[in-house]
């Protein structure tokens, strides 16, 4: 078991609240029609995965992200202002309003970007790992992917290439059991047998409770350390839960309100972590309140900043097509 400093635990706590508040703020803006752009997918319920992995990575390590990626970006250290501004399609956004929620990148903190096409970002992260291996650096690369993405052939191709080239990759599967309305347990055979799949590919495997940020973090640290030491790729199987609909406002015909309520009650990663912090005497109630307050203020500030920011100048539409 790795030793987790008190400071790290508090940073985790802050990050989880930052993600949750950010998501809820985005939902609010979306519902008000201020963020009336595109599908926006909440990662509420999955904060422990993003946080556990994100804080185990160095800033110069790489991640690639998905349609449900705000948490990944924040945990990797992205600026909430520029992230929110991108969701609002503003010029101050990371992508200057070109990309939006499903295409936000933050290269300055090692994010290769979110990819809206399911599975598309996984090979790209493998490629970044290849680059680092070739350069002789010790940077690692961690693609996030949903369990639905296990349906995509290119993800399998990615497992294979990372394995045969022994690349410094940590595949992080956010196994929330669902893809839009579809049960992954029923529709994606290997999603419940990831240990077998990892064995078939020669990937190091670790299955963890994705609602337990400490467990995720420890497993991620181990996998990242192995990758950094040139011991090849790992697959991190994080069992988690999607609290919201697929996107803000999605009707969820496939599950009952009671079911969702029960999931929220039983599997809240933040509540789980608060208990841990108390039990381990790692943070006092007051300290936690302060941290929570700070997260909330950061998000409010980001929202104010984003709303006040100007739209991109229409005449600049042709920029960035070519370098």
């Amino acid at each position, binding site marked *: 078991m790795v030793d987790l400093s008190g400071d790290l635990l508090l940073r985790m706590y802050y990050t989880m609240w930052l993600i949750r508040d950010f998501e809820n703020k985005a939902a609010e803006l979306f519902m008000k029609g201020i963020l*009336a*752009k*595109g*599908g926006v997918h909440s990662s509420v319920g999955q904060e422990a995965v993003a946080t556990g992995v994100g804080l185990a990575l160095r800033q110069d390590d790489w991640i690639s992200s998905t349609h449900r990626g705000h948490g990944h970006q924040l945990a990797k250290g992205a600026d909430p202002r520029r992230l929110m501004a991108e969701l609002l*399609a*503003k010029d101050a956004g990371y*992508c200057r*309003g*070109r*990309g*939006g929620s*499903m*295409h936000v990148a933050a290269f300055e903190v090692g994010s290769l970007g979110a990819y*809206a*096409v*399911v*599975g598309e970002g996984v090979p790209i992260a493998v490629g970044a790992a290849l680059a680092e291996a070739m350069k002789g650096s010790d940077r690692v690369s961690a693609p996030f992917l949903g369990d*639905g*993405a296990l*349906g*995509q*052939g*290119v993800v399998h191709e990615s497992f294979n290439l990372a394995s045969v080239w022994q690349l410094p990759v940590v595949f992080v599967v956010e196994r929330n059991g669902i*893809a*839009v*309305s*579809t049960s992954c347990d029923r*529709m*994606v055979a290997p999603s419940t047998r990831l240990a077998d799949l990892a064995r078939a590919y020669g990937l190091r495997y670790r299955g963890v409770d994705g609602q337990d940020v400490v467990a995720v973090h420890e497993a991620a640290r181990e996998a990242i350390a192995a990758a950094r030491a040139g011991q090849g790729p790992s697959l991190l199987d994080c069992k988690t839960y999607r609290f919201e609909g697929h996107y803000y406002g999605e009707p969820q*015909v*496939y599950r009952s309100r009671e079911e969702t309520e029960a999931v929220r009650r039983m599997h809240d990663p933040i509540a789980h972590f608060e208990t841990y912090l108390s039990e381990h005497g790692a943070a006092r109630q007051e300290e936690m309140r302060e941290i929570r307050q700070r997260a909330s203020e950061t998000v409010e500030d980001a929202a104010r900043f984003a709303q006040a920011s100007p*739209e*991109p100048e*229409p*005449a*600049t*539409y*042709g920029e960035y*097509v070519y370098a």
Partner: protein
Amino acid sequence: MPNLTYKEAIKDALAEELRRDSAVFIMGEDIGLHGGAFGLTKGLFAEFGPDRIKDTPISESIIAGAALGSALAGMRPVVEMMFGDFSALAYDQIVNAAAKARFQFGGQCKTPLVIRMPVGALSWKSAGVVHCQSVDNWYVQIPGLKVVLPATPYDAKGLLKSAIRDDNPVIFLEHKALYEVAGDVPDEDYVVPLGVADIKRSGDTCTVVACGKMVHFALEAAVTLADEGIDLEVIDLRTLKPLDEETVFNSVRKTHRAVVVHEGHRSGGLAADWGMRIYTECLDWLDGPVGWVAAKDVPIPYNDGLEKRVLPQVADIVAAVRKTHGEA
């Protein structure tokens, strides 16, 4: 005649064909209980059950490939791609396998296969670079495929029925911005044949050739231009391949002017193809240059202010028409 939306017309076509022919079935992501990303299959699951309304994993390539295989073995699959853009993942199965199967096997088989794809930009609710593309010419350029894009509920229903009854792979494009557009749709069974264009507005001073949302933009442009004494003839191609050239040529021979309008990017796009055909066949009839309206060679931005600059607007059509009349 009942007034239905484009979306309802498509759903009705699916339901009627499912009832008519037990070989017809639908497969795609979240099309069952959920009813599809745009609600196109809502209710079908209740009537036809999971065997004929088949939810799939997120695996566009096997979806297309399995549909093709089932067609070769006697079924009549209808695939729903959640967005046309995602068909890139199935490109090999569509262009290298499905399009060529009948030809490469020397006519031993038929490939009755429909792949439905929502295409085009929504503007009011953009989703960015890979949710808004006009993928028409990913497919029109491939021999063996038919490509369809209806502009009205009537055409949507009639063309989809033709597509499902056709023995070839048909790429059936649906413009997302038209899903809520309403129009009259007969109760009786009818089809709109593939390969036949439709004159959506008769006029005699300039022909506009378009498809999908651009048909509606052209009709809007016609209203503006009518005040200037310009009487547009708006041709809705409806089927992009095989192309009904004759309807276009006859119109241009009548109006002596033409503007081609397509939502896809200018370079390598279909507007150029249509324009070249008009020049080639009607050069001596033309009283002015053929207008060329297409999206700029820029990916479709998330921000809608930028998006408007990239995609063709009504004003662009108006301007192009004026230019064919020698006006700046």
